[in-house]
């Protein structure tokens, strides 16, 4: 069970159930298996949770590049989706388990190599996600007014590296390239009534920018058709029901689709039916529409060719699109340009065509084509003792349950390898003990989970004053200031000497 409680008794009582061999192992072997997880997003925490729960002796250390934990739950999940962030409660319980430790502010591949981790741990799990985005590769992509969805989401969610994004929201029309949930999230944030956003943990800075926003129309543009959209129905329904914003769907885009999805799998069928119903619905059914002029719509079968500059070349004024026809059907349908072009005017372009994982370290194999670490059930190909889970394992797709199942799968591989002797646990490994001295020698100050709890408390306190669940601290130095200085070994010695006196 994942929600609140659980942990202690299942940890102790059922630790041997799934893999009975452990009981014997626990009695005969001396060294506790030390496992390290790289990345503290959902993949990292779900992997750690499963290993801890099903192996009563394992010690799991979770490393994180940022001082603060939880990855995309904190920096990806939209601020108006606090329910999804409830998973943090369970992650917190995992982090506070006596057999788990969190070490933030440590960049693997820079501060520490994967080889060094492998020296210190019996098993290393890479769950560092997808920190880059796919690029359009078209002229004008770098013009002012063009942003990646990753950066835009990072901006309103308080990701330190995106705090200077400063998007220009003085235009009336925004164009989002992509038909995924991230695209819908951004459209919703751009068009939501401010009083709804005020109650969320959206950053103060982005809220102030949105308060001055002139954006009143958002187009979501995709290369393919309605049957190929990647967003899920919950997010679409939310967008359709957004107060003060009117959906604009062209009924012609949906001609004949009702028949086409009759025998489609249920999710695709219901999603398409909701789009059709919305497209055919008579306008003015929502009384708010007359009050607010905001609107959004889906445009299909348009492939971006160039971001068009203003006359002075300083910024984006629109996107030239190639109209496409579809070859094939279903998920594998391909968009083929028809030769016709169209220009869409807009002052803001957000490219939401996917996240992308990056290679971490030369010691780790990486499939640049697919953007993943080649693996089988999470076991990294050709490197015993190395595992991966989450987006870096299967690509940047899916909802939280996808990552949960995928992480449990990798954890199961680790557990099997511990049981089957693939991982040699006869010699003990030092774990964080070894890392600590390496980090100290390199001037890196690791952040513990109780350090994070100080940041968390400060954020909650600041948020309370503004009626928000929290006000995220967006500056790395400020985070470290809140934690206070790292206790020095010499101080500790002094203290120990003083106690007997």
């Amino acid at each position: 069970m994942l929600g609140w409680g659980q942990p202690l008794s299942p940890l102790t009582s059922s630790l041997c159930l799934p893999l009975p061999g452990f009981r014997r192992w626990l009695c005969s072997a001396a060294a506790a298996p030390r496992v390290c997880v790289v990345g503290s997003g959902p993949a990292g925490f779900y992997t750690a949770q499963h290993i801890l729960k099903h192996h009563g002796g394992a010690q799991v250390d979770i490393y994180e590049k940022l001082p603060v934990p939880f990855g995309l739950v904190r920096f990806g999940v939209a601020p108006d989706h606090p329910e999804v962030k409830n998973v943090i409660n369970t992650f917190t319980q995992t982090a506070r388990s006596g057999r788990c430790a969190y070490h933030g502010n440590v960049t693997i591949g820079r501060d520490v190599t994967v080889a060094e981790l492998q020296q210190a741990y019996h098993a290393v799990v890479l769950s560092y996600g997808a920190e880059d985005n796919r690029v359009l590769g078209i002229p004008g992509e770098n013009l002012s007014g063009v942003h990646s969805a990753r950066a835009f989401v990072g901006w309103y969610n308080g990701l330190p590296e995106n705090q200077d994004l400063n998007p220009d929201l003085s235009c009336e029309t925004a164009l989002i390239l992509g038909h995924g949930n991230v695209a819908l999230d951004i459209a919703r944030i751009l068009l939501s009534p401010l009083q709804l956003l005020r109650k969320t943990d959206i950053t103060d800075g982005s809220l102030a920018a949105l308060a001055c926003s002139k954006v009143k129309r958002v187009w979501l543009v995709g290369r393919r058709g309605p049957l190929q959209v990647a967003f899920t129905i919950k997010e679409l329904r939310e967008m359709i029901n957004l107060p003060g914003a009117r959906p604009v769907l062209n009924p012609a885009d949906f001609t004949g689709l009702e028949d086409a999805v009759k025998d489609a799998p249920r999710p695709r069928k219901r999603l398409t039916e909701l789009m059709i119903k919305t497209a055919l619905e008579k306008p003015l059914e929502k009384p708010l529409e007359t009050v607010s002029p905001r609107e959004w719509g889906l445009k299909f079968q348009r492939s971006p060719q160039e971001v068009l500059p203003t006359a002075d070349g300083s910024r984006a004024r629109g996107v030239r699109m190639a109209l496409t026809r579809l070859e094939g059907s279903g998920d594998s349908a391909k968009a083929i340009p028809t030769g016709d072009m169209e220009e869409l005017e807009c002052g803001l372009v957000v490219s939401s065509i996917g996240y992308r994982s990056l290679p971490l370290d030369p010691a780790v194999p990486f499939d640049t084509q697919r953007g993943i670490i080649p693996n089988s059930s999470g076991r990294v190909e050709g490197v015993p003792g190395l595992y991966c889970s989450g987006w870096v394992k299967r690509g940047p797709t899916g909802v939280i349950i996808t990552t949960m199942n995928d992480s449990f799968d990798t954890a199961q591989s680790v557990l099997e390898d511990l049981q089957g002797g693939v991982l040699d646990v006869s010699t003990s490994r030092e774990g964080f003990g070894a890392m600590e001295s390496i980090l100290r020698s390199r001037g890196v100050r690791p952040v513990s989970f109780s350090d994070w709890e100080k940041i968390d408390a400060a954020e909650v306190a600041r948020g309370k004053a503004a009626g928000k669940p929290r006000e995220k601290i967006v500056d790395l130095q400020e985070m470290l200031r809140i934690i206070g200085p790292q206790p020095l070994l010499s101080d500790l010695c002094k203290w120990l000497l003083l106690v007997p006196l």
Partner: protein
Amino acid sequence: MAAAGPVQLLRAAAASSRRWLFSASPAAGTWPGCGSAAAAVRAARPFSLSARAVLSSEDKITVHFINRDGDKLTAKGKPGDSLLDVVVSNNLDIDGFGACEGTLACSTCHLIFEDHIFEKLDAITDEEMDMLDLAYGLTETSRLGCQICLKKSMDNMTVRVPEAVADVRQSVDMSKNS
């Protein structure tokens, strides 16, 4: 929404459980939560607590869960409890169950019902259907446990936890251009 009440309560429970987490001393236990989770649920519902006091064990409803490994877990709840309440308060060991804590934001409390019970369940909302669309191993008699409230007629029913198997949704790509 049919189950608005319990959902609200669970939200409150989650919140109070969170407060508890952060005020507890780390020394209190290696993994805080179990017993206190149920306590948090109870603390968040003073009225049902007093109701609970007068309920005899006969008023309780027994539910059998067939877990993924085939194990049968049996627990009791009182009328009005959701199946997620039952799992949480009885500390049933079902991997990954109830990730969003009953707020209709995930599908990890997906359960499969017996036909005769399924037919009598309260009508399903669009929002529950939307989340079920993302569930693994969806069947004709699937519902989300957080949305199903116990009734006397459900006494001794058996629900099955679906296996975590891939289904069509794995091919749904949230972030790729379409």
